[in-house]
């Protein structure tokens, strides 16, 4: 974790994304402040519709015309939201790269893996096609695809989902980006393959010092892989904390609810403590805390005042009115678990 000492790689301040709909504009991302440190893996968790993917698509400026993005995204001293489209195109892929959930459908089905990789390399690094092909093979080796030479001539449909995700990662690495945004990279994969991909991401970070933003709905995935975890709810950040000891130190009622709703593989069996209600639709704008309708410990003031992110410990901040004053009350540390894993 290097986010405290040196200047962060990317600084997001008050990021807001508004989408045009037939019922008028809908604010999907409602003011996010986020830093990504150099060489850091930042995990971003939230349920569907909370704006976790949209906010990063907004950073890359690929949302199209119906979306309005405001705020600042500082990358090496420049606000990415202000630069010209031509300059932004130079950032995409080379400085900031993204991999998406379903790699198989993000690859072009009518071209071979080798061609697609080489094409990206030619575009990003301005090298010749023959050297691009050698480089493509090296990239496939780097993401640990066995038999790279043979794979170069294969089409996406001939490869498994896990291998395609590796190809997508290789493609993202082709521009040597400083920041890799991985949007649910393992959601479509089996657990054993998921473990391999997560390990690969950590290895890439170790070897190249690349920063990674790992977006996922699975707290377990994020917790195992990242250094810091940011929890989003209804377009805002709810909590930000180091991932070590996260399951014990998390204190936002929503985070605790998420932890309780999906008990770990070594926790007692019983009735699941589900969070009542459902995620509010983005069009439902209510005053106060977005979570108060589902919150078990809501105060009367929660429906009036919108909580801001407030530091509660080192590198740990929470957006909850309950937290600074009487943080202890909402911290429900789960029962001590003796044996962590059966083996």
């Amino acid at each position: 974790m290097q986010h405290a000492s040196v200047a962060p790689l990317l600084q997001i301040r008050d990021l807001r994304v508004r989408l045009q709909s037939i019922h008028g504009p809908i604010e999907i991302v409602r003011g996010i402040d986020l830093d990504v440190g150099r060489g850091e893996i930042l995990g971003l968790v939230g349920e569907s519709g909370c704006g976790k993917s949209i906010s990063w698509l907004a950073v890359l400026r690929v949302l199209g015309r119906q979306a309005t993005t405001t705020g600042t995204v500082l990358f090496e001293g420049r606000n990415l939201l202000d630069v010209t489209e031509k300059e932004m195109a130079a950032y995409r892929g080379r400085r900031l790269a993204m991999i998406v959930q379903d790699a198989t459908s993000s690859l072009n089905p009518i071209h071979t893996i080798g061609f697609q990789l080489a094409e990206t390399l030619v575009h990003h690094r301005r090298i010749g096609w023959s050297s691009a092909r050698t480089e493509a093979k090296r990239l496939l080796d780097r993401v640990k695809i066995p038999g790279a030479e043979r794979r170069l001539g294969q089409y996406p449909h001939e490869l498994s989902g896990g291998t395609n995700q590796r190809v997508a990662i290789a493609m993202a690495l082709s521009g040597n980006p400083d920041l890799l945004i991985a949007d649910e990279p393992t959601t479509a994969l089996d657990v054993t393959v998921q473990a391999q991909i997560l390990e690969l991401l950590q290895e890439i970070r170790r070897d190249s010092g690349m920063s990674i933003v790992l977006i996922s709905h699975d707290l377990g995935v994020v917790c195992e892989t990242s250094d810091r975890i940011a929890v989003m709810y209804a377009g805002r950040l709810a909590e930000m904390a180091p991932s070590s000891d996260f399951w014990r130190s998390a204190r936002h009622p929503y985070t605790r609810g998420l932890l309780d709703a999906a008990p770990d593989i070594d926790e007692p069996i019983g009735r699941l403590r589900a969070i009542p209600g459902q995620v509010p639709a983005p069009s439902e704008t209510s005053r106060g805390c977005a979570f108060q309708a589902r919150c078990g410990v809501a105060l009367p003031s929660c429906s009036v005042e919108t909580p801001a992110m407030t530091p509660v410990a080192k590198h740990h901040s929470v957006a909850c009115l309950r937290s600074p004053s009487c943080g202890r009350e909402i911290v429900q540390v789960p029962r001590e678990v003796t044996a962590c894993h059966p083996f």
Partner: protein
Amino acid sequence: MPSFLEVQGLTKHFSVRSGAGLFSPRIPLKAVDDVSFSLKKGETLGVVGESGCGKSTTGRLVLGMMAPTHGSILLDGTAVHTRHDAVWRAQRQRMQMVYQDPVSFLDRRLPVGRQVMEPLTVHSIGSSVAERREKAEALFSVVGLRPDQFASYPHELSGGQRQRVILARALVLDPELLVCDEPVSALDVSVGAQVVNLLKDVQLSRGLTYLFISHDLKIVRQVADRVIVMYLGRIVEEAATQELFQQPVHPYTRALMSAVPSLKPHPQRRLSIQGSPPNPMQVPNGCVFHPRCPRASKLCQTERPELRNIAANRSVACHHPEDTTVSSPRKLETI
């Protein structure tokens, strides 16, 4: 207590083209290969495994949606029909399916209330529309939907509510067996937990028997009484949930469990297996798991381990199970 559902030697082969060509010869794909299990009334049997292991096919076979290549399925002592005739329809009243993706299994152009009533019409239950409507409305409150949502269309409901509609539609015929195929996989964590709780409640109040198919070990552990682990169409391990999760014996089960991301710090590095689940068209010789198995020996390459009992209600298909209390039938010889 006699078993309510008895599955013996269930096998399903699909005939598929061996290559990409239009005229390449057809070869059998063993989706389900010699699977046997039994279920007592009121019990939940979890079926876990990675994609392509045959768990969903098993569920469909149990419901008689297609004919097995070999093997028998007995529901309460009578064989499950696979010809879609009147006998099968009468049998299907007793067993229903809860699907994974509520969006594609609901009719977009029919109010959800009507969709819950539809099975009653199909099976000619209830003398009048009003009577059917009453029955369907009663179920709406059972699954936690508001009465005013009876006239809603699927797109007006949230994912969790749609899954409740699917459940209500399965329950409206008062079935005894529910095959739940990944019932909460498409839902958010907090909503998925609500649906899991609901499934448990309904089971208790109605004495339902569940065949619970899922790839999510965390959920299966919370729901199932017993679990079977499948790999490439075969059962590799079967045990009571508690025992299985405390001490997995098959190397595949262990790998599967250690791959589940955990929130707590690991005492030791996870044991990960390499490679991905192989193509079911190219099933390896010997033990189907041996190319990925850290304990594979020469024996595993040639001889397929049979599912054998290692304790009461516990069986494993492995030459070298990872348990010191279980004596390995043969000495472990590494390659």
